[in-house]
């Protein structure tokens, strides 16, 4: 039988194509690697082992293929749907699933924690017969349990958002509004207030939390240190370069006169003599 060389043509063409792609891929590493590292740095690793049980294969491939944000959005909408039906197990599972899929948006962590800490205790009490039937001790136990779940959940968020002001505030608010634990709330507000990106109100609330615990001296020291850092309107006659001029909104949000007013209140409460009082 005569060997037909033409039969080898597709094989030769295939080899040329593969070899060219191989060389091109290798040659383009210097372009691809830094870009890929940058893309990857913005994408926390998927914990597939915790997701595969809850998701089908199709969704998993979608997640791996780059549809991660949209999948998380879909599941968040589903979370809202089960939340409106007061379905506690489904809501709690979906909240955790959403942040397992895409832990980057703070919105998911904040709102998930709010559902767990503020809504779910009401659902549990309602399911047990309502606030008239369930004893106060039992209500408090439920609130403590749900708050613990929410705080644990928010602490997981620090893994993706280290030192986030919003997460510190969310934990502080759970302590303040749900558990009425002023000391722990103050601790988290303090952590948030120390961050340079903290909104102005955080430092003011921290001082108020200290005052409500009777720690007036600490609040006084804190506010005295805070006041000089706050933006204030430029006094008439003083010319400042435009770039150093705080905006009207910033001045309004900083509420320097309110802070000064509180300093004066504490001075009265602590009976600080006139000559030792804070001089702005």
């Amino acid at each position, binding site marked *: 039988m005569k060997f037909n060389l033409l039969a080898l*043509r597709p094989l030769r063409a295939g080899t*040329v194509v593969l070899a*060219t792609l*191989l060389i091109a891929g290798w040659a*383009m590493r210097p372009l691809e690697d*830094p870009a890929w590292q940058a893309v990857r740095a913005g994408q926390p690793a998927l914990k597939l082992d915790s997701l595969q049980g809850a998701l089908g294969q199709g969704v998993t491939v979608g997640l791996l293929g780059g549809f991660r944000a*949209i999948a998380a959005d879909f599941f968040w909408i589903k979370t809202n749907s089960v939340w409106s039906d007061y379905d506690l197990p489904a809501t709690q599972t979906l909240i955790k699933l959403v942040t397992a899929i895409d832990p*980057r*948006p703070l919105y998911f962590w904040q709102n998930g924690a709010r559902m767990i800490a503020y809504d779910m205790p009401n659902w549990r009490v309602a399911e047990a017969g309502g606030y008239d039937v369930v004893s106060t001790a039992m209500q408090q136990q439920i609130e403590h349990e749900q708050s613990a779940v929410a705080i644990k959940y928010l602490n997981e968020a620090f893994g993706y958002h280290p030192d986030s002001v919003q997460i510190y505030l969310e934990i502080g608010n759970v302590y303040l509004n749900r558990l009425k634990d002023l000391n722990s709330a103050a601790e988290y507000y303090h952590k948030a207030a120390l961050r340079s990106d903290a909104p102005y109100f955080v430092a003011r609330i921290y001082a108020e939390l200290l005052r409500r615990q009777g720690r007036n001296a600490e609040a006084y020291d804190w506010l005295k240190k805070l006041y000089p850092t706050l933006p204030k309107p430029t006094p008439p006659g003083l010319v400042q370069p435009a770039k150093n001029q705080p905006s009207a909104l910033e001045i309004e*949000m900083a509420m320097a006169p309110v802070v000064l007013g509180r300093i004066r209140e504490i001075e009265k409460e602590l009976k600080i003599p006139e000559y030792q009082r804070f001089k702005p």
Partner: protein
Amino acid sequence: MNATTGGVPFSFSRLLIVAGNTFTEAVRQKLFNFLLLLAVGLVASAQFFREFNFGSSELKFISDFGLGAMVFFGSTLTIAATAQLFFSEIENRTALTILAKPIWRTEFIFGKFLGVFAVIGVFCALTTLLLAGLLCSRENSLMALHPDAFPNGRLIHYGDLMVMGVLQWLKFGVLAAITLLIASFSNTNLYTVVMSFFMLVICHLQYLAHDAYAQVASLPLRLLVRMLGYVFPNFQVFNLADQVAIGSGLDAGVVLRVAGYALVYIAVIGGLAVYSFRNREI
């Protein structure tokens, strides 16, 4: 050079004529109905999010869904349009008429590519502008309703959104070149479409094989996987959309590298499609 070209030099004007015809043919293939459907879908989804009262985060949802729709429908459109426009020439025998004239196969293939690339460009431009318009309109409303949620001004970087549209266009360009390469040796439209979808999935997931086998003890297996990683382009490098949606800016250096990566791949894979097509009997 093809024997039928009879020694005529390569001509960009002939290439552009092929591209122009391809574009016209694509527009006639109900492409704009498809775009209209997508636009209606986008607008409807934006209205749907208002039901949930997401606040300023509604913008993230609109952006995610808009960019997701662009990636999904864009990939589908690229593969379907490229395969359809290539095989319509083969099946209607018009390719024979065209290639019987003094025209290079390079001009034919790159003309086809440019025609499809222009169609995808229109698709990307329309969807990006529509999405930007939707986001801008909704952001204005939300800024009026909840000014405290926008302490630093606008959340969406509209310039980055436009850059994302361009990067997606370039990615679809690589995908169109891959589809043309497959079409250049394939006998049927269906085979081309199926194989191109497989390639799309492989190019999106090849990084996983890299990761999984990076720690494998067996050296030959590791080398094999590394080589496979070189053969398939990594489509995940184009996945910068999430950063736009969560309010982070795009890094200009990364954008330029990704754009360069796409352009080099378009040239290389397009060249291979020409090489493969030159060996093909029509």
